[in-house]
């Protein structure tokens, strides 16, 4: 097979991914403009979706790419939320400045946590993360300055200082949530396209072989864990900025911040970038249509999860990708004919 050297080039994009990029830009523009076309309730719902999308993408990076199946990410959601409140109330920081700082603190606190739980493997690791999250919850419940076990609200003065009017404040928190989702997607996408991403994928496929080719598994996983913790804490700060009230039970809820998130990732397709997006849409469709049913709704969620795991273990997106080869976020490299 002989080919002229410069008629082919390596590209990662495909037709589908270019269409997706254009469509994605349009959707993003539409979402940025939401404060002008959407109602208050819709914006709240959308914000919540963006924040769940962030959590799901981060958990997917952790479990689906780095193989770190954590059921304790609520530790960082709650930690981020509490840091926002603490920095705003005690240090007088504006919530906007407190959010990235909460993320930074989340990453810092993840370092000793990682040193501890990285000694555990598999199921023990998962349980270890949960235990850590419980330790966080119990610790924050002891801090009486933050309301102890019953929690606290963000002081009205701080909330008022954020924006000139209520609608402006709501638009701001909406944009922050949207920005968070975009940042998380961008960071993960860039990470996976980098050399580190190749190493992570290699580790996921075969730890043995990855090690044998000089990849430091511990360091790669550590970096992902700390990065994920920081971004999860930032997301947590935003979640509780929207709620304006925090309590240990809400902040460190394993149901809200881990079980639902795992549901989203598993339904959508673990180990794919597109999966969590599909998963969030499915999850919110189910929630918005069925939540009046009370506990039956949770039963239905469980049934859906079991059905997907049995019928499409790679999730909805994974199955679609397998059948069609579709890839919206181009990660794999492919050869294309150069246009002259």
């Amino acid at each position, binding site marked *: 097979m002989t080919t002229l050297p410069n008629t082919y080039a390596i590209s990662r994009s495909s037709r589908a991914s270019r269409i997706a990029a254009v469509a994605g830009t349009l959707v993003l523009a539409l979402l940025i403009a939401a404060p002008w076309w959407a109602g208050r309730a819709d914006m709240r719902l959308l914000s919540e979706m963006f924040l769940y999308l962030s959590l799901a993408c981060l958990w997917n990076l952790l479990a689906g790419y780095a193989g770190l199946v954590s059921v304790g990410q609520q530790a960082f959601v709650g930690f981020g939320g509490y840091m926002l409140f603490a920095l705003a109330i005690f240090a007088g920081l504006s919530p906007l400045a407190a959010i990235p700082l909460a993320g930074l603190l989340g990453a810092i606190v993840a370092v000793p946590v990682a040193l501890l739980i990285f000694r555990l493997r598999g199921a023990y690791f998962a349980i270890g993360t949960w235990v850590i999250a419980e330790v966080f919850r119990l610790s924050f419940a002891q801090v009486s300055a933050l309301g102890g076990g019953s929690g606290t609200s963000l002081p009205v003065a701080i909330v008022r200082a954020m924006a000139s009017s209520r609608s402006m404040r709501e638009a701001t928190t909406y944009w922050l949530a949207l920005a968070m989702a975009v940042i998380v997607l961008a960071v993960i996408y860039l990470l996976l396209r980098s050399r580190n991403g190749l190493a992570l994928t290699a580790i996921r496929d075969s730890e043995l*072989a990855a090690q*044998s080719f000089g990849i430091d598994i511990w360091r790669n996983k550590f970096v992902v864990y700390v990065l994920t913790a920081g971004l999860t804490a930032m997301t947590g700060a935003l979640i509780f900025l929207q709620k304006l009230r925090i309590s240990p039970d809400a902040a460190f809820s394993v149901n809200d911040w881990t079980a639902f998130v795992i549901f989203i990732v598993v339904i959508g397709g673990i180990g794919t970038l597109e999966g969590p997006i599909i998963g969030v849409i499915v999850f919110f469709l189910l929630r918005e249509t069925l939540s009046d049913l009370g506990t039956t709704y949770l039963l239905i969620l469980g049934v859906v999860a079991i059905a997907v795991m049995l019928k499409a273990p790679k999730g909805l997106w994974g199955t679609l990708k397998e059948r069609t080869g579709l890839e919206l976020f181009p990660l*794999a490299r492919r050869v294309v004919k150069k246009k002259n």
Partner: protein
Amino acid sequence: MPDALLSTRALVAHYGDFQALFGVSIDVQPEEVVAIIGANGAGKTTFMRSITGLIRNRPEMVVWKGQAIGGLRADQVAHLGIAMVPEGRQLFQSLSVEENLIIGGQMGRKGPWSLKTVQDLFPILKERRHVPATALSGGQQQMVAIGRALMANPEILLFDEISLGLAPIVIKSIYEALPAIIGEGMSAIIVEQDIAKAVSVSDRVYCLQEGRISLQGRPDELTREAISAAYFGV
């Protein structure tokens, strides 16, 4: 004896309570090809994993150019110039053929092997470079595994059961390519169940039996009877 490139010194290895190796000592000289033969469960794979750091040992049990390396992690061992073609190939299934090769070369060690020279050795790997590695046939996958190890530009290449699960004709072609692979001033350890194949390409043979060396010598010194006695322990 001149200074060995790689030696093991009374190497012992355990899996929990089970002891797999009982004081195995071997030497590999520069540019030498050593074959390690033995039946299933003789400890061959354990031996390879001990050398590559996948199983950690006491430092002095594995010696590389006079340096005790038995306590290093696998990724640290890899940086020294020890590469393995693992049993069962262990390709990265979600990466393409080319990406698998790139991972092999990610340590950036200098040497004769690059994406181009590996693809020249196995042209099929160039032709099918964007295909997921596991979509290839068994023999082609073995080429990826070998190419990936070569990309690391190792000083010694360890082959763990290269012919396992492959068609005889494929095994033949891989063994025909071996001189070209090992020719570039490299040493090699070949672990094999196929005695004839291993003996034909090696300078020296060790036979492992239940975690101990039962026989060693140059291929021309060893009789078929001695080898089968050492192999089966009868």
